[in-house]
Structures are given as C-alpha cells and as structure tokens.
C-alpha cells in the first residue's frame, strides 16, 4: 500500500519547508493537499523537499500546480527541491520544468526564497 508521511518545518523568514516521504499518488494525494492547505492559510513561501518521494502521480503534480498558483497570486513563492531523476521525468513530461522553480536541496531552496523576498540582504 502507498504510504505518505509529511513533516513541515519553519525555516524562518516566512518560509516553511515541507518534507513528504513516500509516494504521492491517487491514494495519498489528499494528505498532501490537506497539509498544503493548512500551510497556505498562514505562510507566504514554501519549499517542498521531494528527496524522499519516489513517485508523483498526476494528482500529486496537480497539488503542486494548485499551490504554485495560490502562492503566486499572493506574491509568495514555491520552490520544489531535491527532486529525484525519475520524478523529474514526470515534471518534464507535464512541462512543469518551465513552471516551477527548482533547487538541488531544501537549504538552497530556502536561501533562494529568502533572496527573492528580499529578507536576506
């Protein structure tokens, strides 16, 4: 059975790092959707660390698309970090490599978001 665990951590500077672990498929995507909805209510910028995610279905990609649109509309930012090469294939096929900002690690994603919001000089 697909499993998904999700942790989130306040990285300071208005940025939250979300760390899902497992597969984001039609069985588990609602967990991701709910975790992101809770964050969207209060946070401006989010790094989604996918280093421990071995599969992202269309439903999982859809959650990220929705989060991206919501954050963009309020002037925040989304960075997708540490994507495995296989999962990046899904992003490529969907054309999302031209849509999302990517970072090689969550730490780098936090740094980039800090720069983008001008909080870090």
């Amino acid at each position, binding site marked *: 059975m*697909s499993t998904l665990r999700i942790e989130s951590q306040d990285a300071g500077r208005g940025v939250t790092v979300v760390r899902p672990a497992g597969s984001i498929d039609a*069985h588990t995507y609602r967990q991701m959707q709910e975790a992101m909805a809770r964050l969207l209510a209060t946070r401006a910028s989010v790094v989604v660390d996918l280093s421990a995610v071995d599969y992202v279905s269309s*439903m999982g990609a*859809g959650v990220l*698309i929705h989060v991206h*649109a*919501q954050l963009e509309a309020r002037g925040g930012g989304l960075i997708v970090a540490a994507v495995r090469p296989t999962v990046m294939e899904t992003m490529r096929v*969907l*054309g999302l490599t031209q849509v999302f900002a990517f970072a090689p690690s969550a730490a780098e994603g936090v740094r980039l978001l800090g720069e983008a919001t001008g909080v870090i000089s």
Partner: protein
Amino acid sequence: MNARDTLARLDVRSDPAELSRVRAFVLRALETKARDTEAYLVAQAVDEAVSNVIEHGYGGDPEGAIEVGIEVAGRDCRVWVRDTGCWFDPTEAAEIDVERHVREGRSRGLGLYLMRAIADDIRYERTDDGWHELYLEKHLAQ
C-alpha cells in the same frame, strides 16, 4: 520476429491502495528491460490508467476487478489494463491544455495527458469476453 521476453499478469481490486502494487509490478517486469526513467514512465502511464478505471470505470467502488498484463517483445513494451466497470474511453477525451491548468491552478485532469504523452500507442476496446481493455504500447530506447 521478436521473441516474447516477458509476459506477466496482476489482478487487483479497484482500490487506490492497490496502486503501489501496480507500479511495483510494472517496474519488476521492466527491471532488466528498460532504463530506470523509462520504466518509471511506463509505471506512471499504467498507474494513471488504473486510477482512471478506479475513478471512472468503477466510480469509487473498491471491489471491482482489474487485470494488468505486461509483455516485452524486443524493444516493444505492451500493457493491458482490463476491467468490467463502466465504459470509459480515455482515447476519446478532449485534448488537455496543461498551460491552462497551470494558469488556473487546477489540480485534476492531468492523468490522461500523462498517459498519452508517455505511450506511443493507446487503444480502448470491448473484448469478446465482455471486458473493457485499454492497450498501451511503449517503444523502449535501450
């Protein structure tokens, strides 16, 4: 004529909890036949096909029967997804505009796009024994 290298079948219920088994089955069948990223994409196409059957074919009833078959013949990977639910022909669905999805922040409806983008050939038909059968073909590069 290509030799038939692999022929395997998996029976699952129409329950989203079964999707990880489906993907593992496809990845195992392609373990020595395809590159990791290519095997992953085939598993993705099959996962999306089975997800569609669960949602549209059986309307959320978790007890429907789904059969998945896979064979590799030379560089051709062929997959069948069979069910006895409602008729749902993904080959007849309208084209999907991913850019519009992104602009509008839509979270659903990309599974068909992925299936079509990954597979080189998709067909859907009713078989003589009364099943609906989605056929996916992917030419392997390796």
